[in-house]
């Protein structure tokens, strides 16, 4: 019996070491963090995009999904991932540790806005100042449009953002913030205009229960960043593959499913607006 067990263990060890040997020969895997900055619940889309990237990069790609920006930021900081699609606010926070790799084109422009939404039956609210004492849904404490921007607007109005609402809560994604308003749980939320537009196409029944009251100025679209330690060839290869997506049918189809027009290299200056708001809160 114990002899058989020993044999089995030996066999297992051999198998494991051979697998290790194999992986050692293969090109290094690329790890890519995905956050709710874009739609992170389209699992079928992500699987297809992954195989598209693997095909173009000739390297294995692993998507690491995190619901909270802070988690994705941690992964980046700890170099557990090489690339990440994060919000513009975390990008500014991590500016010294990451490089801007690519920016998606939303309706032809590398920008988006913060949309202030209220339940559809609320036809009184005109701006965020009308929501004083309301229950308000934030997306994520590291979201620009879902947290920084509305607080900035409140502060601009001369109020204290931490005492302005009766109750606030985080839904940890823009989509869920829209759902919270649609369900009537929150009397208002500030969400990513791109997410609201996409949801408006995919689930118009949900967005129909909400009303966009106000839109902010344009901010740089949530960027794809690379850790500073990512080698230049890898950085360029990834950037090229992403920027070429709009040029081949398969890539175009994938972009179509995200309702995006393509990727450009982008400029860090796109995110100066965020930096400005952060400065107001003393974060920079």
């Amino acid at each position, binding site marked *: 019996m114990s002899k058989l067990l020993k044999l089995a263990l030996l066999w297992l060890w051999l198998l494991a070491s051979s697998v290790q040997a194999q992986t050692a020969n293969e090109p290094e895997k690329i790890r890519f963090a995905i956050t709710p900055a874009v739609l992170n619940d389209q699992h079928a889309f992500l699987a297809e995009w992954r195989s598209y990237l693997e095909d173009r990069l000739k390297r294995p790609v692993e998507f690491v999904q995190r619901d909270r920006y802070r988690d994705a930021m941690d992964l980046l900081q700890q170099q557990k991932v090489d690339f990440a699609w994060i919000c513009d606010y975390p990008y500014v926070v991590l500016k010294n540790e990451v490089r801007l790799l690519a920016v998606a084109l939303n309706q032809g422009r590398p920008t988006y806005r913060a949309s202030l939404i209220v*339940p559809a039956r609320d036809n009184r609210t005109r701006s965020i100042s009308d929501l004083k004492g309301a*229950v308000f849904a934030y997306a994520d404490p590291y979201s620009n449009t879902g947290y920084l921007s509305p607080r900035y607007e409140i502060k601009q109005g001369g109020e204290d953002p931490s005492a302005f609402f*009766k109750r606030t809560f985080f839904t*940890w994604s823009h989509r869920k913030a829209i759902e*919270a308003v649609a369900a009537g749980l929150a009397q208002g939320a500030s969400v990513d205009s791109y997410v609201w537009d996409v949801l408006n196409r995919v689930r118009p029944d949900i967005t129909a229960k909400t009303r966009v009251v106000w839109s902010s100025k344009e901010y740089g679209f949530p960027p794809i960043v690379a850790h500073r330690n990512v080698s230049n060839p890898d950085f360029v290869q990834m950037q090229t593959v992403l920027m070429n997506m709009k040029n081949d049918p398969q890539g175009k189809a994938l972009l179509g499913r995200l309702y995006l027009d393509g990727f450009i290299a982008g400029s860090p200056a796109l995110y100066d607006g965020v930096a400005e708001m952060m400065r107001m809160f003393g974060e920079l």
Partner: protein
Amino acid sequence: MRLFDLSLRFKMPLWGGGLILATAIALSGSFAVQAWDNLNEDILRNAQELGRITAHSLFPVMLHDDMWKAFEIVSSPYAANPEAAATETLTVLDTANRVYVSSRPEEQPVLGELASLGIDYDLLNGELPLAADAGIFVRDARDAQHIYVAIPIANGGVRLGTLLVTYNKSLHRERFLLLLKRTAWITLLALAVLLPITAYWGHRMMQPMRLVTGRISRIGIGELEPLDPFFYPYRDEMGMLFLAYEEMVSKLREKAEFEKEVVKSERMAAVGRLSASIAHEINNPLGGMLNAISTLRRHGPPDPLTQRTVSLLERGLSQIRETVAALLIQTKVKNRPLTPNDFEDIRILVTPAANKQDTRIGWSVALPAAVSLPATLLRQVLINLMLNAIAAAGQGGRLEVCAQIGGNQFVLMVENDGKALLPEQLNRLFEPFTRFSEQGHGLGLWICYTIVNQLGGTIGAESNLGLTRFTVIIPLDPAHDASAQDLPD
């Protein structure tokens, strides 16, 4: 017409249907009560179950003040089941009984006071136990619209709030009504199947009854129709009724026969008495008249006219005497007993008459040496019957005589194969002066009847197609001895 006067044909299916209906209602009723209780219990149990599980998963979420997660937890049971969402509400209350989150955020806004949610909740606000170790609190007033189950969200002696499961009974009622409706339909379906069966059964059951009833009601007007026993061959009460009816009808028929016999014999007796008294009255002067004529012929003037007249009178009076004598049969006279020889004598006597028209005579006489019956009278009976039979048999006919002693009775049968007798002839056959043939004075059978009657016996005739039979039965009982019989004198 009253309901109870209806034919059983209708009453049986009606009663049957009523019984079925009553049974169905009773069963459905108990089923409904049971179902209502079960439904209630189920709802309460489900509410507690759901509450317990939800409260358990809510504790860590509330501990981290993750309101959205709490909302996802309370709304997830209804995401896939909008029907449940219409009847059930999950409300999470904080320690101050304010709404933390609810599965109906529009009606129960965040931070809303429990007391402000409605009159029921206001009542509940004062009743909810708020201790950390409080158990599950249930409020299920019979007349209230809602069931409330409150589960503490607590762990390790720390209470973070209360989960309130509210169940609207209206859907519960709706479901129950649906159940009742279904039951009613099933009952109606069962009735639709069972009622025609009952109707058919009642009809079938009542058919023999109606037949018997019809027959019995016609007895009054004298119609004694028989019932076909094959119509109802079973041995139950109905079968017994059939048998009883049969028995009754046969008894009634016997009685009618008997009454007819009685009337007939009474008539015969009356006729006998009348004819005997007339004969007697005629006989007395007749003797004198014959004596006088005899004297006149012997000693009167010898002129031929007188003699011829006297002879004419004498012949006429003699004929009257013979006729009268035939009416006055004397059985009182002591007589020698009957022997087989008497039969032989008669046979010899009538053979010439038979031969004359080629009538064959069948003869079977089995008698002991002497039978204690008056020979002369029986010879008279036999000769009358045989001569009648020969006459009836006609040319080339057949005649059968049979005499025997059976069971202390003398039995004589005379049959012929001549023309059958008509029923009206049979009816008045033995009455005097009823002539059914051209010959004779119509007294032959009357004489036979009188003799047999006086000997205490019976004489009868039956006539079927091709065979007419006269049967004489005379008891050999000494009590009915001929000597004891009285004759009208």
